[in-house]
């Protein structure tokens, strides 16, 4: 498949939303409290809605979601990371929603092809970020156990955060400025939550930008196997 520049960008952003939505969907029936069953499913649905719009800009949403193999997916390695405990899920949400909000706020203010989607999505993402922040504060500044778990989580996922600021062809953003704003925002939340702001490398499991090149972490293939199995078992069927 030869991609035009904006198709590639639509795929990258669409894959981020699709994959994170899937991970959040795995929480259904397992959340620590009923209100979180509602909240996590709600965020998953928002992201799936974004994914469907973005993938449809790049082609047929189901063909793209269900018939590409691991090496053809363009999502960030961050969003494919397993849910882990609730702290890991929240840390992943904090990192990603902060990024997504900065990016969509910028895209919404322009007149590019992503502007209409971003204008709608930025409202959803503001809610996601607020949810992640509130939980980061509760877990960080909660009990000794929750602080310890949250510190482990923010540390463990930190190395996947550099990838978000690798320039994406077709998306006109000052990536360095966005990275600075992200570091400030996330650092501020972590400090308010009495957590340690990680200092390690942020280059991902391979190199920064690896997920965008179709180089993923090992759990991702298994996730796709589950997601795609039924669709692939009935070629050409409609549902």
């Amino acid at each position, binding site marked *: 498949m030869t991609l035009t520049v904006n198709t590639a960008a639509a795929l990258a952003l669409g894959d981020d939303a699709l994959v994170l939505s899937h991970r959040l969907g795995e929480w259904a029936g397992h959340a620590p*409290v*009923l209100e979180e069953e509602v909240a996590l*499913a709600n965020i998953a649905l928002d992201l799936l809605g974004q994914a469907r719009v973005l993938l449809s800009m790049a082609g047929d949403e189901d063909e793209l*979601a269900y018939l590409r193999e691991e090496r053809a997916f363009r999502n960030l390695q961050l969003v494919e990371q397993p849910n882990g405990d609730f702290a890991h899920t929240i840390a992943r949400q904090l990192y990603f929603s902060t990024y997504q909000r900065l990016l969509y706020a910028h895209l919404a203010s322009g007149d590019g092809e992503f502007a209409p989607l971003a204008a709608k999505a930025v409202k959803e993402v503001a809610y996601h970020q607020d949810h992640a922040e509130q939980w980061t504060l509760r877990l960080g500044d909660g009990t000794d156990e929750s602080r310890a778990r949250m510190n482990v989580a923010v540390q463990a996922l930190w190395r996947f955060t550099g990838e978000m600021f690798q320039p994406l062809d077709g998306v006109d953003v000052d990536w360095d400025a966005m990275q600075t704003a992200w570091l400030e925002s996330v650092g501020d939340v972590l400090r308010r939550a009495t957590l340690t702001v990680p200092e390690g490398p942020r280059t991902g499991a391979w190199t920064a930008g690896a997920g965008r090149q179709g180089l993923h972490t090992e759990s991702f293939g298994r996730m796709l196997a589950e997601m795609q199995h039924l669709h692939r078992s009935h070629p050409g069927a*409609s549902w």
Partner: protein
Amino acid sequence: MTAVTAGTAETTGAPGVSDAAVAAEQAAYEAVFDAAVAADERIEPRDWMPEAYRASLVRQIAQHAHSEIIGMQPEANWITRAPSLRRKAILMAKVQDEAGHGLYLYSAAETLGTSRDELLDKLHSGRQKYSSIFNYPTLTWADVGAIGWLVDGAAITNQVPLCRCSYGPYARAMVRVCKEESFHQRQGYEALLALSRGTEAQHAMAQDAVDRWWWPSLMMFGPPDDESTHTAQAMAWKIKRHSNDELRQRFVDIAVPQAEALGLTLPDPDLRWNEERGHYDFGAIDWDEFWDVLKGNGPCNEQRLSRRRQAHEDGAWVREAAAAHAQKHRVDKHHAEQHQHTGKHGEAQA
């Protein structure tokens, strides 16, 4: 207190008089309650109600809430495998709604003087039940459609009359729940229709699911009328409006033409229209299976309850963190308000 004691009290004095007064007051309350129920008025949380009415409602509403929560599991089982993004979105929204229904219903139960924690504890320890239907496994994607059509269909048949239940908070919760359930039911039907009209393999998948879910759905209406222990009292109190068998018949009458429209058959050789009764006759339900599942021996009882307990236990540290944070925050807020107060006071003095 007996009438004799009350009679004695009228003539002999102080301590007995209060007994008589209590009895008379009790009778007066009872009369007001009975009149309200007879007049189809709503009983509200602050109204007096017989203890047995309260206990019966707590039992029923709790069981209903638990069913929403346990009922998330068989469907959530397919979220990660849904075959198209549209179906995945529909299923996620549905499971989310179920959690929301659980929340409404626990709130309704709490108006009767219990708490969600207490009820969840009873669910986890097996002292309160949930609908027997959720002890059956979802083995194929078509089960998601069959649950939407049959299980939600049966639930709606049960719940629509509950919108007129004598207890206000429960009736109002049912209005909201039924609106969303009807939507889910239509989506389930539509998902099955797509399968039925799809490839041969899809059609077979749909038929197999309907074959497996039909009888358990009929069991959702509960035991036959002559074996239902709660029905007579619940109907007298206008908690229930129709008997189990009446509702079951209503459901069969609605489902048969829908199955025909779907192009699927129902697994009952005795199912046929009875001109004389103006209803469908249907075959005998396997009540042994029903009681067995209710006793905890169904295919998924153990798994459903373990999963629920596990989620609760795994989440304990999160709930503790939220409580600890709220406690600290409350103190902070209190201080902030005091400072603000002092500040204003200071300004006023200056």
